[in-house]
């Protein structure tokens, strides 16, 4: 009798291969994609109301994108060989090709867009600051100090084009992560064409919720009044996206239950036992139904600004927890049952080791530190500057 194992598992299946760090990775890249989509709402889809969060969303995306490879590096048996993915990428491997999608998104979309957006301020700060900061800004100018109105118009035009390319790139970024799981035919919990779509929409939900929560927190810290029109609009788009996400997840559930293939009994039992808390309570009830209700209530009835803020913040935080639970249920859940459909194992999460809980918590806090540094370096607070393009 192996501790933690019920029934029969193939002998090599007992130990989980992908730990909480691999739960973190799709969560972080999801926040990136979602934050960027929120930014593109203003830039491309002309939802002018969310303008106050445009720069904030871009910095959020960058902070999380920079940290995203770290859980992977900690997980690898040989992180020193990770460059091999760029040297000899296996084109049939979604994981290898994702490395290039990541690079593309980081360099050609996100960094470029941020540079174009902030160029005026960077040039100004390069001339006004002193010491180390002056050097940093001078490097960031890439040597050009042209901030004439015509040049700025050109920046807006090109920035618009970059955002237009960025929307499908963000879809690709997180859809690909979903495909990494969805294309594994050996695992019936993962293998479905819905996986990239579900990942994408849950990414959008988590990213929008993250920017919303960060916006409220930042405004509170800076003792600045919150633009309620902006917040209401973000909450509205969060609601729409959530409805689509919930529909897709329910579709997957109903389809599985109805078709009831050979894996169904085993998976159903797993959800009702080992995943009861994380799936039914955290993901579905607290993480989806409660936020949906809170957001829907604001579409049906009018509440005071204070009440709305409280409801949005509660919904936002619950959403962030719920989407993390969703990633947990996919990654960990997919390894808890045996591919023989005759048994289950348990995940013994380590504590202080390389792939342990402490590492996971630190890696979730690190993007906030990076975000703080970015906010200091490239302040996102400007009043009323709209894009001309």
């Amino acid at each position, binding site marked *: 009798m192996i501790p933690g194992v019920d029934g*029969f*598992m*193939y*002998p090599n299946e007992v130990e989980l291969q992908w730990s909480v760090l691999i739960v973190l990775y799709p969560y972080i890249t999801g926040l990136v994609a979602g934050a960027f989509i929120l930014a593109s709402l203003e830039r491309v889809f002309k939802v002018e109301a969310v303008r106050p969060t445009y720069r904030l969303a871009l910095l959020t995306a960058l902070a999380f994108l920079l940290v995203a490879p770290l859980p992977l590096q900690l997980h690898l*048996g*040989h992180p020193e060989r990770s460059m091999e993915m760029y040297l000899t990428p*296996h084109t049939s491997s979604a994981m290898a090709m994702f490395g290039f999608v990541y690079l593309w998104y980081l360099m050609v979309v996100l960094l470029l867009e941020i540079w174009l957006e902030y160029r005026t301020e960077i040039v100004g700060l390069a001339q006004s600051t002193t010491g180390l900061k002056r050097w940093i800004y001078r490097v960031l100018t890439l040597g050009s100090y042209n901030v004439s109105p015509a040049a700025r118009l050109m920046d807006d035009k090109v920035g618009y084009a970059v955002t237009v390319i960025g929307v499908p790139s963000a879809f690709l970024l997180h859809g690909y992560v979903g495909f990494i799981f969805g294309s594994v035919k*050996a*695992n019936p919990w993962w293998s479905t064409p819905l996986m990239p779509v579900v990942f994408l929409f849950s990414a959008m939900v988590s990213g929008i919720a993250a920017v919303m929560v960060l916006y409220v927190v930042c405004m509170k810290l800076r003792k600045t009044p919150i633009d309620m029109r902006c917040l209401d609009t973000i909450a509205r788009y969060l609601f729409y996206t959530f409805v689509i996400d919930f529909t897709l997840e329910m579709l997957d559930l109903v389809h599985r239950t109805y078709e009831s293939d050979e894996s169904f009994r085993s998976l159903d039992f797993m959800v009702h036992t080992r995943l009861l808390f994380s799936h039914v309570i955290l993901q579905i009830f607290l993480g989806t139904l409660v936020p949906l209700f809170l957001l829907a209530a604001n579409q049906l009835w009018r509440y005071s600004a204070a009440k709305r803020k409280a409801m949005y913040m509660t919904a936002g935080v619950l959403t962030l927890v719920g989407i993390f639970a969703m990633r947990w249920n996919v990654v960990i859940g997919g390894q808890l049952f045996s591919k023989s459909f005759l048994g289950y194992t348990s995940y013994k999460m380590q504590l202080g080791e390389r792939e342990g809980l402490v590492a996971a918590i630190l890696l979730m806090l690190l993007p906030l530190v990076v975000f703080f540094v970015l906010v200091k370096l490239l302040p996102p607070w400007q009043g009323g500057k709209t894009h001309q393009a």
Partner: protein
Amino acid sequence: MDISRRDIFTVGGKLLILASVGATLRQITGAEPPSDAYRMADHWWGMIVDIDKCIGCGSCVRACSKENNVPQGYFRTWVERYQIGDQIKEVRQPHVESPNGAIDGFPPLAPTDGKSFYVPKLCNHCADSPCVQVCPVGATFVSPDGVVLVDQTYCLGCRYCVQACPYGCRYLHPETQTVDKCTLCYHRITKGLTTACCENCPTGARLLVDFKNPKDPVHEILRTNMVQVLKPYMATGAKVYYEHLDGAVR
């Protein structure tokens, strides 16, 4: 550069002399030419497992473990024992066990209703291997002679292949921190030996086969027996064929 007839004769003559000297020397010393006699293109390896012959002694598991220094608790091959009760009403569900991969055999089973049997398992060395498909760097591959191998100096230890294998035959080696699995004793079969598991199976339940060898018994076995691969619907091109396999085997 112009090559004249004279040049051809000169060079040709020299080569002829060298060749004949070499051939003579070979006959005198009786030494083998220093070329590797094993040619990958001549072989396409697989295995036949006969369920009716397996006695669950675990000799194969022990032999593999010793031949390949398999770390304790991990298995390149293992044996499962199936017990399927008589079907009365519900769905036919087997009871399966594999105590420590059957490295010490099994505790004896008292007679029960229904039936019971042993199933040895190993890497199926799939021709359309899903594990090779997902490797991001090319650390695991199908060799030209049909063996799925891992490059221990190149593997990142990402474990995507472990997730992609439908048969559960891969594991992360705790010391090398790279993925490891059955190599079909590649180091033995390329030298004319058989695998450690086939060598040590006392009943001949496991048999190494070479599909490209016209004299190999595999062709007669496949012609005269009903055979199956594990999880055929996965379409992995598995090359381990099971004789007398029950449909309940997972």
